[in-house]
């Protein structure tokens, strides 16, 4: 009985402490995002373009001892990306990924993010591909390549210009690691560095995401 009472009191106390909402901060982060980035593996060039759908935005306002409020935004997105890189003499790789993105934005606009996802890759081997028939006749195979399943993971940092400068842009750098399989009956791992821009379109084509705002006050 005592246990039940403690749980009930704790739940009620928690409920009344998260009652305030700051809607303006939410709206800024709830826009559909378009991304364009340079997608490089070591010295090999590439491009990445993507779209982000907001799923959940949690705005946490913290008040410190000096009664200064700091708001941190924790956002969750589902992103779809189309990527490409060119490794001369090896292959060109065009790959589609869908990722779960977790982003944490500080009041000044700096953010960090982590993502993981699944994808599909189509490679095109890096040179003319020949096939020799049983009778010795040689022919050229056009656009020879392979299909692979993919797993991706990545992390990066960036700066959201909308927070202070009201520009609907973010700059970011991100390190991704992806694995393709089955690659020669094993896996293929490749790191890729992204440097790019994310543009908040200002349209709400997908506004069923959860909006939560929490205010926490630090007391003595």
């Amino acid at each position, binding site marked *: 009985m005592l246990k039940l009472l403690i749980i009930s009191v704790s739940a009620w106390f928690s409920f009344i402490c998260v009652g305030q909402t700051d809607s303006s901060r939410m709206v800024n982060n709830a826009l559909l995002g378009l991304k364009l980035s340079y997608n490089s593996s070591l010295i090999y060039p590439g491009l990445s373009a993507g*779209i982000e759908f907001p799923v959940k935005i949690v705005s946490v306002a913290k008040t410190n001892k000096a009664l200064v409020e700091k708001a941190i935004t924790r956002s969750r997105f589902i992103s779809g990306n189309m990527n*490409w890189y060119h490794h001369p003499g090896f292959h060109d790789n065009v790959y589609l990924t869908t990722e779960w993105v977790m982003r944490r934005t500080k009041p000044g606009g700096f953010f960090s993010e982590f993502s993981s996802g699944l994808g599909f890759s189509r490679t095109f081997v*890096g040179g*003319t591909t*020949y*096939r020799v028939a049983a009778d010795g006749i040689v022919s050229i195979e056009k656009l*020879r390549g392979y299909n692979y399943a993919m797993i991706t993971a990545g992390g990066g940092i960036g700066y959201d210009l909308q927070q202070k400068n009201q520009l609907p842009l973010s700059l970011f750098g991100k390190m991704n690691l992806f694995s393709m399989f089955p690659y020669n*009956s094993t896996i293929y791992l490749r790191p890729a560095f992204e440097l790019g821009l994310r543009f908040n379109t200002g349209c709400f084509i997908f506004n069923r995401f959860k909006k939560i705002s929490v205010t926490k006050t630090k007391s003595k």
Partner: protein
Amino acid sequence: MRSLVLFIFILVLSGCQKTEITFSGHASETFYVENAGASMRVLVEGNTASKTLIIFVHGGPGAGSFIYNTDYIRENLEDKYAIAYWDQRNAGASQGNCNGDELNLDQMVEDLKKVIQVLKYRYGQDISLFLLGHSFGGLLMTAFATKADYQTLINGLINVNGSHNYPLNETLTRNMLLTVGQQQLALNQNSEEWTDIINYCNSHSGNFTFNESVQLEKYAIDAEGFIPGVKQINIPAQILKYAIKNKYPLTSMLFNYIFSSNADLNKKLAKKEFSSFLYKVTVPVLVLWGKYDFVCPQELGDDFFMKVSSSEKSKIVSPVSGHNIMFQDEKLFCDAIAAFVQKFRH
């Protein structure tokens, strides 16, 4: 978005798979040969105008051919002839999906035949072709040359520290570790390490299991480093030196190597011998060896040299080399090959 997709697609189409055949003193062209689920990279570099090509058949299995493409070979061999750096299936930059079941010696012999057919298709049926097999590549090259009439496709064989007989190889490695080890112990050189090696060899005298063969090879690689006067090579440093310059697909090389070196193929190779088939070889032969090669001891080269039926054959031993004469005695390596090829090309 549609424009971007189109842009990427055009880039892909224009950026790769160009058919480029160059006859010049400084050609450099990459193409792929597709066979039984594998697209195998072939890089042809050097003097294609000479109409003479040397195909490097790399070791491993799974080691890839990138490592042989050094500045020295570029300046001292590729200036005279073209070299075809072939990545065998599941090695180097070779690509595919679920092709592990095809990783066997018979299939690799057929792959090599198709690489030769493509080279003749690209550079002309009248070109001169030489096979250079290093380490495991020596076995693959011998399997090729002793099969049917396959040697009619080539002008000569260059055996560089190659193993054409794995059971004999293991016995010779053990004997050499024991003999040289005892000499080194008497000279008080690396006594602790040699004692371990000698003890292992004394407790394993023959009929080696696969794991014993692997251990003997590890000791053989270590032993080369204990011999004063043998030029030591630093493979990781070499990879770092050429990784960007030669556009290594590093992770592909690594995962292919891990897969191939642990594949069932290795257990089957442990029983393979071609000594009893060498009489079939009639093309000119050059045997190049390192005196301090414990991995494939010199007597293995002698066995190859003695048993081929070729009327034109020669053997050269480098006194400062171990298993990798192409890096340890570069001048001797390039000069010997250039002279041999010059003599027997069309």
